């Protein structure tokens, strides 16, 4: 057996660098801290690659399946004899895959940030936060138990909060970070409740026991019912709520577009490639439970995923902020992944959706990170986020243009770029299980191609704008990650996922079904075509279309008014209708009660002062009548 305990360092190195930069960052020159952070990640990256190599190719399989290895485990907090939070490293195909994804993207982003963040205040802070995030995310994926996952889940939330609010003097950034944290926190509440329900039904937090076919979670099945659904179903629905929050699934998606207020590398790392797919990862982690014990919850996952992907894709078509377009496209793509999980079965070819989902997660990380980094390079060059203020940049930013185009092809699903393979698997899985969802996703594939190329053309083609200073290509330190990721976006699709990452860790035979693949290529091409017609040159066609769509367009442009709805709920209902009355109640009723007691005492004291009139005879009167009254009362009570 190979000793994997060194994997702990993959996680610990970023933590060490976080502490180092956090405490002593201001002692270094900014560039130095950037390089330190990046080099730390590089070590982690190398270690992950080594781990992946060993895990997939060296470790002997058990009964043909990749084993679940506990590389390290220690009890962190003990609730009861069976319920305890451990900290450890669990290696299985998905966690190893995630290690690769996270360290790769994170390393690229670190490298890119050395250039991108140059001259920004708080340079070392940025890198320490990036390290913190990487640490949390790595901790999340290697979690051996659901509570460990929850811990790191919260930590990625907070690092996301810190990074979105990096420009803390900008009110919009502060608001966005707050919103992101609170919305995901609300979702985490669901996650936590889900964990609590798990804790009473299965009496364990451990993933291996939870997903063990003979374990209590799967054995119990749907035995205990509550409101018509089994407790496991409830539990999984709540857990999924947590996942939906992190992955910006409808209706908990509202934070993600705003989160684009953060520095662009952060968007690339957290809000495109890694953290937002944590929800998908969570569902994948719990997948056996979903499939076997909580199929209803899995259906929820599928529909939420499908709806989100459509919903986000529609909004993406109407946005002008390039980062927001990418954000909605992220949501849409994650919707794909969720859907794929939702339609998947367990084991063998049944588990095609699972495999596809993970595959898409993998490829998406590359091309979406690439898109964001390109966006960063563009913003770096023109100092605006709005595509209306861009145009004709292909001459000025050749490398960016090329890599962006590759990424667009990848996300649109044009072979042989990475996105094609994974998306094709998803459509295939959907087609096999649920035609309706397949139809939706099929349409979304077209819309995706359309809005991506709308973005592409509006940035790089069209009329050149008047820029304050001529845009120029980003420095090498930024373009190298672009190029490396572009290579990933091209090649990632060739990884034989069906052999590596499957629902039951057993490889299965899979090949591209042309019946699914060709139509999807066609619709992607259609989307690209429409975009080309609309946006390659300046035309008034888009205006015409929007006018035709009318209020639907307006609604989509306003993101279907979800921000307003949330604002209404939080501001008008929670703040004005709950919190303000509570505060009033506290001040006036509860406190008034206490003050009332003292007021009554005082006023009684004032009222009875007349007894002490200063009149001798009145004193005597009280005296005598008191004595006689007492005498009469007690004679009555005691002798009659």
């Amino acid at each position, binding site marked *: 057996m190979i000793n994997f305990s060194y994997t702990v360092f993959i996680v610990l190195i970023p933590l060490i660098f976080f502490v180092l930069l956090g405490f002593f960052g201001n002692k270094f020159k900014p560039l130095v801290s950037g390089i330190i952070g990046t080099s730390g990640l590089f070590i982690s990256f190398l270690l992950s690659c080594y781990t992946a190599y060993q895990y997939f190719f060296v470790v002997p399989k058990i009964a043909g399946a990749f084993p679940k290895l506990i590389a390290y485990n220690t009890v962190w907090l003990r609730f009861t004899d069976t319920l305890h939070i451990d900290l450890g490293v669990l290696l299985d195909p998905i966690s190893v895959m995630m290690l690769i994804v996270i360290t790769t993207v994170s390393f690229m982003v670190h490298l890119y940030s050395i250039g991108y963040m140059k001259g920004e205040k708080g340079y070392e802070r940025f890198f320490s936060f990036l390290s913190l995030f990487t640490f949390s995310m790595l901790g999340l994926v290697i979690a051996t138990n659901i509570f460990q996952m929850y811990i790191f889940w919260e930590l990625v939330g907070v690092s996301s909060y810190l990074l979105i609010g990096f420009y803390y003097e900008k009110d919009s950034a502060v608001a966005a970070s707050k919103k992101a944290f609170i919305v995901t926190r609300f979702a985490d509440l669901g996650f936590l409740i889900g964990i609590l329900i798990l804790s009473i039904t299965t009496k364990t937090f451990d993933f291996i026991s939870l997903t063990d076919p003979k374990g209590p979670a799967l054995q119990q099945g749907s035995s205990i019912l509550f409101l018509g659904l089994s407790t496991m179903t409830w539990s999984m629905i709540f857990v999924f709520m947590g996942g939906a929050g992190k992955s910006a699934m409808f209706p908990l998606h509202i934070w993600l577009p705003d989160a684009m207020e953060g520095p662009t590398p952060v968007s690339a790392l957290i809000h495109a490639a890694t953290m937002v797919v944590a929800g998908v990862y969570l569902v994948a982690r719990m997948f056996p439970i979903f499939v076997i014990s909580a199929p209803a919850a899995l259906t929820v996952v599928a529909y939420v995923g499908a709806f989100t992907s459509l919903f986000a894709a529609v909004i993406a078509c109407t946005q002008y902020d390039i980062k927001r377009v990418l954000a909605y496209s992220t949501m849409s793509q994650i919707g794909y992944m969720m859907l794929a999980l939702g339609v998947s079965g367990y084991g063998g070819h049944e588990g095609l959706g699972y495999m596809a989902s993970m595959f898409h997660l993998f490829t998406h990380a590359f091309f979406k990170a690439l898109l964001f980094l390109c966006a960063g390079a563009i913003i770096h060059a023109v100092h605006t986020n709005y595509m209306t203020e861009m145009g004709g940049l292909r001459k000025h930013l050749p490398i960016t243009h090329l890599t962006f185009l590759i990424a667009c092809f990848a996300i649109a699903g044009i072979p042989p770029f990475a996105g094609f393979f994974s998306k094709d698997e998803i459509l295939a899985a959907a087609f096999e299980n649920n035609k309706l969802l397949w139809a939706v996703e099929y349409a979304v594939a077209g819309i995706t191609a359309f809005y991506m190329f709308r973005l592409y053309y509006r940035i790089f083609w069209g009329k050149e704008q008047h820029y304050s200073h001529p845009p120029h290509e980003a420095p090498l330190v930024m373009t190298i990650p672009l190029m490396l990721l572009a290579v990933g976006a091209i090649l990632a699709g060739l990884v034989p996922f069906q052999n590596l990452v499957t629902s039951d860790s057993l490889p299965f035979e899979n090949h591209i079904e042309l019946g699914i693949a060709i139509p999807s290529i066609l619709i992607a091409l259609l989307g690209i075509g429409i975009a080309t017609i609309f946006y390659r040159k300046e035309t008034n066609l888009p205006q015409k279309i929007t006018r035709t769509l009318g209020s639907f367009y307006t609604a989509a442009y306003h993101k279907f008014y979800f921000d307003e709805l949330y604002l209404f709920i939080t501001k008008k209902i929670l703040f004005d209708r709950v919190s303000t009355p509570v505060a009033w109640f506290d001040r006036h009723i509860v406190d008034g009660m206490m003050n009332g007691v003292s007021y009554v005492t*005082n006023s009684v004291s004032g009222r009875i002062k007349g*007894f002490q009139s200063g009149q001798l005879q009145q004193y*005597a009167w009280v005296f005598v009548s008191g004595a006689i009254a007492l005498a009469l009362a007690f004679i009555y009570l005691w*002798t009659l």
Partner: protein
Amino acid sequence: MLIMRHELLLVIITVILLLVEIFLPDNRKHTIILPSILLFFIVTVLGFIPGPTGELFGGMYATTPLILTMKNILNLGVLIIFIQSVNWLKKIENKGKIGEYYLILLSTLIGMDYMISSGDFLMFYLGLELATIPLATLAAWERFKEKSAEAGVKLIFTSALSSGILLYGISMIYGTTGSVYFREVMGAFNATPLQVLAFIFFFAGMAFKIAIVPFHLWIADVYEGSPINITSYLSVISKGAAVFILMIILYTVFYKIALLWRDVLYVTSILTMTIGNLFAIRQRNIKRFLAFSSIAQAGFILLGLIGQSQLGMTTVIYFVLVYIFSNLGAFGVAGIISNVTGKESIDDYDGLYRTNPLLSLTMMLALFSLAGIPPVAGFFGKFFLFTAAAQKGLYLLVIIGVLNTIISLYYYLLVVKAMFLNTSDQPIAYFRSDAYSRIGLLMCVAGIVIIGFASPVYEFILSLSHGLY
């Protein structure tokens, strides 16, 4: 003769002082102060020497170790008052009256000692009157102040009325039992209607002395009008003696109707605590304030009386001891301030801590002790009183009692607030108090601080209180 040694010693020094007073030339009258204090100090010390106990005059006079302890406690209190009064007595308007002061106080003390030691109602009555009537002259001490005369009138008339009613009660007791000797009354007392009437009238008379509602109304006016040292004497010694004798009589003479008097005390203690507290809240004059606070304290003492047991009895004596120290501490400070500045309003105390920290601290300790705040002695006293009441299962009474402690804490804190929290444009300026005042206050503070922690005090009283109830 040694059985009566407390009284005899007092009589002896009274006579000595009387003679000295008479033969001192007018311009040297003030030199009597130190000898009086020294003589009384000797008496106090001698009182602590254990000696024989027993009965005299066919049972008219009786003493036990417990009663001796009570007398010693009173002696201690009077000693402190003697010391505390020096400052005041030296004032010009008291010139020529210094000797009187000591003589009158000593004679009332003799009265109280006889009262506590009485074995029949006659002795009790004589002691009571001896302890009361001279006090009226003390209350009316300041001849040129209307308030003082008013206090004297109110005291003498109400006390006369109360002793009239008390006597009426005693006459009924005599009529129904055929004796005025405690021992014989005890055997013959039942709860016939006439006897209930007799008891209530008797109780009213005693309640007057202790200031139990509704027999308390005189107390505030008299306290306010009297010179502050007299007030402190009235509030601790006079009241303490009355509590002692009431306890003895209730526990012995009226033990057969314990269920009845417990109910009477139950009602009156609730009234006393509550009314005393409610009136105390709104007082601004420190003496009047302490008057009402002492009414409330009397209500708490009744809790101990109700817990008719060895525990209750010990606790009452213990509490009176603590109360003497605490109240004398408070009165001592008020007296010093009043003597030096003539200010008696709580509002005048604003910012006192900044100018006179030690006085303020003493006052605070005394008030905390009165309020029953640890770690000072009052806490122990209150706790044991409640324990005594709870022992009889009277939890409702305990609850009312503890709620009343909160009200009392409020007004005690008002004084603390004035001294520590408030600021004033014209605070009482810093002054050095004289050695006598300091010694007096030091004794009080020592008592307040030590008595609680020194459990032997309590245990000693307990060891003596066998067999009385």
